[in-house]
């Protein structure tokens, strides 16, 4: 698949051996042979592949700072990489870039129960944080399905969420501080163990910035006490509309479940075959609702949810009676991707966010598109916060199918924006949805974001070619002031 990336700088390519030699001055972990580079040529969006000029694996902040400073001075592009599980191509290398893998930043630095936080290096996996504090009854709340593998640095860059984000928020709500290194080598500490910092909220704007503003070298994350009681219920419906309106009713009655997920029939069947979670096969939509709190509160809420489900014509329900059973309920949902991997050679996972009451509408549209493109699709939603994950299945051996799958995905996302939603809820824009940014933003909006990028990275060397369109003229250079509707070439396509 041809993907437009910023043009490679021939001078840099020609200087490879010198650059590698120089990089070796700053760290002993530099990879440059073709074979060594291969593991880094792609991320979770593996339809795109590109080997970088070289890979560095720095071991401490000083090395990161020196490498970045060197690259900045010599106009060398840098792409940060965590565990490479990203689904939007955020850590896809460029031919002339230094790929900075944070894999050696793999230590938890401090567990501070008094301030209820953990200080960690960014290469530590999401799950490892919970594992480090669970013996004291604590956990780290954001729980992406990839939590076994993905890194905290990557989570920060993508503002990752999980099935429990409905109640406990995404990464941005759970990180208290970071140490970052800017492309010119400047080391900055933002936030810390306290709650609010004064001044511009650099911490907030850094969350979800997809590795474009700086490299995270340390993070302080909030940990929460485990709830006293947790239970989940499986609820089946004969139509997706009923499931959707059940979700809206639960939320508007003031119940905030810990998690609330919907799966459609194709996904129920696929996950049930794969994970044997005990899901009913004869329903059109399955809702998993998890409630936590004190024991009696959980009981009362589960009952309320079941009452609401009944009013919405639920045809099936089953509540968990033990933690093992609850985990089994989630086993299917958490295996959604693997299950699709089994029934189709390839799939891409979309990630739009929509207003909750549009769920049925959007799903109906997705099914129409599935017929139009003649590609199978299975759907899971973080229904409580309107975040959709349609999994579009295709066969990449047929080059036409990838294009079709991408067009299908783009149509879904455009529709999400049309009904008042956004292009990405938690996977980021990366290279995948870059050209769709103009569906949501106009020229002024994009230019403002690019100006902000310049404040952090004047030469646009850190992870260029991601998030912002490069095919559209307006994003190339310079700022066009459209005032009072007057512009030099009003009929040229812009945002």
């Amino acid at each position, binding site marked *: 698949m041809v993907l437009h990336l910023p043009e490679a700088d021939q001078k840099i390519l020609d200087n490879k051996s010198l650059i590698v030699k120089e990089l070796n001055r700053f760290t002993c972990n530099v990879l440059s042979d073709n074979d060594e580079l291969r593991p880094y040529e792609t991320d979770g969006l593996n339809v795109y592949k590109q080997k970088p000029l070289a890979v560095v694996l720095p071991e401490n902040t000083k090395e990161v700072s020196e490498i970045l400073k060197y690259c900045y001075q010599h106009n060398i592009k840098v792409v940060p990489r965590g565990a490479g599980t990203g689904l939007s191509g955020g850590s896809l290398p460029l031919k002339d870039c230094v790929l900075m893998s944070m894999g050696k930043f793999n230590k938890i630095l401090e567990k501070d129960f008094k301030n209820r936080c953990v200080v960690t290096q960014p290469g530590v996996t999401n799950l490892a944080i919970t594992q480090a504090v669970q013996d004291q009854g604590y956990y780290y709340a954001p729980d992406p399905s990839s939590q076994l593998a993905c890194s905290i640095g990557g989570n920060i860059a993508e503002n990752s969420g999980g099935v429990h984000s409905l109640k406990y928020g995404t990464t941005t709500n759970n990180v208290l501080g970071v140490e970052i290194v800017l492309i010119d080598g400047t080391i900055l500490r933002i936030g810390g163990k306290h709650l609010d910092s004064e001044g511009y909220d650099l911490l907030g704007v850094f969350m979800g910035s997809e590795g474009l503003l700086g490299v995270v070298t340390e993070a302080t994350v909030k940990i929460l006490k485990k709830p006293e009681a947790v239970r989940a219920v499986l609820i089946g419906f004969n139509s997706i509309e009923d499931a959707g309106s059940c979700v809206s009713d639960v939320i508007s009655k003031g119940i905030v479940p810990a998690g609330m997920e919907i799966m459609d029939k194709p996904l129920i069947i696929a996950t049930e075959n794969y994970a044997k979670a005990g899901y009913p096969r004869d329903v059109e939509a399955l809702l998993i609702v998890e409630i936590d709190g004190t024991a009696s509160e959980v009981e009362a809420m589960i009952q309320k949810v079941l009452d609401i489900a009944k009013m919405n014509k639920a045809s099936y329900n089953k509540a968990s009676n033990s933690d093992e059973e609850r985990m089994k309920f989630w086993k299917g949902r958490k295996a959604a991707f693997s299950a699709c991997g089994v029934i189709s050679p390839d799939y891409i996972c979309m990630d739009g966010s929509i207003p909750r009451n549009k769920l049925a509408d959007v799903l109906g549209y997705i099914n129409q598109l599935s017929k139009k493109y003649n590609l199978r699709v299975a759907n899971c939603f973080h229904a409580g916060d309107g975040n959709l994950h349609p999994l579009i299945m295709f066969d990449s051996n047929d080059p036409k199918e990838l294009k079709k799958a991408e067009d299908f995905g783009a149509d879904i996302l455009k529709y999400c924006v049309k009904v008042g939603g*956004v292009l990405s809820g938690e996977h980021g824009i990366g290279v995948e949805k870059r050209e769709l940014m103009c569906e949501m933003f106009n020229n002024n909006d994009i230019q403002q974001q690019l100006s902000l990028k310049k404040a952090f990275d004047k030469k646009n060397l850190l992870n260029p070619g991601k998030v912002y369109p490069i095919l559209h003229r307006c994003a190339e250079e310079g700022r066009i002031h459209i005032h009072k509707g007057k512009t030099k070439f009003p009929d040229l396509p812009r945002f």
Partner: protein
Amino acid sequence: MNDIYSPVNEKEVSDFIYECHKDSSPIEIIGNNSKKIGRVIQCSKTLCLENINGIIEYFPEELYIKVKAGTSLEEIENTLDSKNQTFGFEPMDLGFLYEGKSRGGTIGGVVACNLSGPRRFKIGALRDHLLGFKAINGSGEQIKSGGTVVKNVTGYDLSKLVSGSYGTLCALTEVTLKVLPKYEYQETFCIYGLTHNEAINFFSTAMDTSLEISGACFYPADNTGFFRLNDVKQNNSILSLRVEGPKTSVQERIQQLRKIFVASDYSVLDIFQSKAFWNLSKNLELFKNINEIVCKLSLPITNASEFLSKFSNDIKYFIDWAGGLIWLSTKDIETISKMRIFSVKNNGHLTIYKSDDNYRRTEEFLTCGDTNFKILSSKIKKSFDPNLILNPGKMYAGI
């Protein structure tokens, strides 16, 4: 005072700022002038956004409200109230602090100051509840960011940047905020007679449970006179823990608190007193009608004891956010300087909320010890406002 221009729509705001941008002529942005916050600045022009007001859309079941930035907090809160909803971040009414009576100001001002109340440590700050906005930047261009949905990683999260930017990046014209259903019930568990050190330890004990405490503050003995509530014991220090949720769950959790703190002198405030208590606390009524410098200090919890051991005799104060925040006042400028030094050393943030204009003119409003942070802040300011015309110098001298 200079002339005040009060546009009635976005286009007028845009045109006005565009003209000022061309002439590099500085503008002070005001909502309805309720908060004398930030440094005193010299501007030839004042832009008042009070007339850009009204509720644009409110979908209770989608849990958000979209309003024009000049809408009064009061109007918005009344609207939410009618659907039994509220802002989770509990915006403070700073009118008591500045004028001795209620004056919540406009929502634009509330967002620009990132005002977050007692629930902050549990549910996040205002910045966590701003889903999207529209604004005019310093070049007169209309910009927008975010949307109406909670999960969103579509470009930089500018909502975070504008929250707490005190009108120095852009003039907000429209904001979309997350709303929450009101809690059905609440009670507050008060413990009396603790020292500040004991209080910090008690916070820790309470937070180390699964009881979902949603308010945790401490007032030393001589600062509690303004809580005139039946079940609040006078002449004692008070540590208060708020529990919210369905009635049975609240009562169950209060019961657990009784067990944990059985050896202490305590009382329980019913729903009415509990609401009144947290309103008085949230709106800083402790500092009503006093003529002193009032500041907010955000500190790691473990540094709060040391801070209070050093300074508690020189200040009037209370602790909020389960030990994470100290509100305080003092007459003495020297004390403020010493606290600033302490704060910078201990990774804290001290912000002056109220002071006389002389102090506001000459002294810093925020306490920033990091030059690199300031350099980057200055670049960010320029990325929104290249000619530095919006509230110049309000946050930091020169930015």
